[in-house]
């Protein structure tokens, strides 16, 4: 059971075209925590996520994953985007196998693990389907399975359910919670939906401004397991209103 944690220290990031996306962002996420990032479009939520994934080297400051600079670590992370981003020439099983293949593990030795994981995301029996044969929600479940198969200590989600219809979205959120509770994984999720952030996260970070910076850090003390019925409670409304007010 490895619990890594994320630490961003005074991060500023400027793109090669001179555009500054984020300025002086500091945050820490402890192991096993579920954090949501909310804010308007263009405040640098996705950039922060990519910095945590080690895809960008920050212009200033440092991003630490488990006490190592994120862009140097060889530790793979789990990454899910709004688009399922599946490789269309691979079957569901082939797609989920990819992270293990990159680590040098054969499909034979990992077959059982993949089948178990597909079962966990509710896709038992779809191992040999191609991505084009799946609905949007199913494809996103495969993407989630792919992000978890190598047991990463950090799962980064960039509006993972943004392209799904409202009902599928609610269901996927619940399933994500269920999986998160089963696995020792730290989650950081970018979302545009305030109710989704409140329902899923332990903490909601609000980004504002241009360049973006964190202006509010709101702990959600709703009990777990969280259910959709909680959305009707006054506590839930209180958190949602506080987050809404924090977004300028």
């Amino acid at each position, binding site marked *: 059971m490895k619990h890594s944690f994320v630490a961003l220290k005074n991060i500023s990031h400027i793109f090669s075209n001179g555009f500054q996306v984020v300025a002086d962002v500091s945050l820490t996420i402890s192991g096993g925590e579920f954090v949501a990032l909310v804010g308007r479009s263009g405040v640098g939520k996705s950039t922060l996520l*990519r910095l945590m*994934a*080690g*895809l960008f080297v920050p212009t200033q400051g440092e991003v630490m994953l488990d006490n190592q600079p994120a862009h140097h*670590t*060889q*530790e*793979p*992370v*789990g*990454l899910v*985007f709004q*688009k399922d*981003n599946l*490789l*269309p*020439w*691979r079957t569901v099983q082939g797609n989920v196998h*990819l*992270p293990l*293949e*990159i680590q040098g593990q054969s499909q034979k030795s990992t077959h059982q693990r993949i089948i178990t994981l597909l079962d966990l995301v509710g896709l038992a029996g*779809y191992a040999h*389907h*191609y991505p*084009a*044969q*799946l*609905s949007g929600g199913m494809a996103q479940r495969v993407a989630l399975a792919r992000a978890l198969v*190598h047991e990463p200590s950090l799962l*980064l989600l960039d509006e993972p359910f943004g392209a799904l219809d409202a009902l599928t979205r609610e269901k996927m959120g619940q399933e994500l919670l269920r999986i998160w509770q089963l696995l020792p994984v730290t989650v950081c999720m970018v979302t545009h939906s305030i109710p989704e952030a409140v329902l899923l996260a332990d903490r909601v970070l609000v980004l504002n401004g241009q360049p973006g910076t964190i202006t509010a850090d709101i702990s959600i003390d709703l009990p777990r397991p969280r259910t959709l019925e909680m959305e009707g409670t006054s506590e839930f409304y209180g958190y949602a209103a506080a987050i809404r007010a924090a977004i300028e």
Partner: protein
Amino acid sequence: MLTRLRRQPSWLTFLLSFLLLLFAWQMVVVWGNYDRFILPGPYDVAQQFKVVWQDGRLPKHTWITFSEVIPGLFIGIAFATPLGYLLSKSPFVARLVSPYLIASQAIPIIAIAPLLTIWVRSTYWSRVLVAVIVVFFPILINVVAGLRSVPVEQYELFHSLRASRWQIFRKLELPAALPILLAGLKVGATLSVIGALVGEFVQPKSEGLGFLLVTARYQFKTDLVFVVIVTLGVMALLLYGVVSLLEWWLLRWQTFAHGRKV
């Protein structure tokens, strides 16, 4: 009747259209009352085919041209693919060589080919080289286009999994670029025949189908010209067919990408 024809297997449609073409050709010859050396009919051409096939000239020259086309195609691929990869990866290399590459395409191959026969001592390799040059550009362009078609998010996925450069090439870039690459290969395969032919045209002491074509024209053996043209067409079709077969095999997954949903 047309709807019924549309439902026929494709080989039957082809056969019907081919017979129709032969018939129309024969009609033009008969009505126009053309001399054989102006426009031979299909029957004359078939007879001439029999003659040059039996005296061994057609197999010999066809084989020579074919033996230029195949190395031309493969050498073209072997040079265009790595350069295309470099071009798409390095903006510096792209800035450096792109202007020359594009400018070179404005010069017709027929203008360079005689030079090559002067510079390359081997008559065989000078003809292969013309085929290489003709094949090179369309393949290069398609390698670059194929690599550019890989979505940024998929690169990010591979980087987040800490994939090596080789793994990214092998498991992402190659399969993602393959559909566009194969389309380029189809163009290249048919162009390689033209390249070899041009190479044969410009050599004073030559051989191959290009040579046979030129001599037949000088001797007003128009039916032989037709035989060569048809042979060239068949050769290009065969090469195209092989690439199509390869495409069908390598892109089997695409059959699932169209239509059928669960």
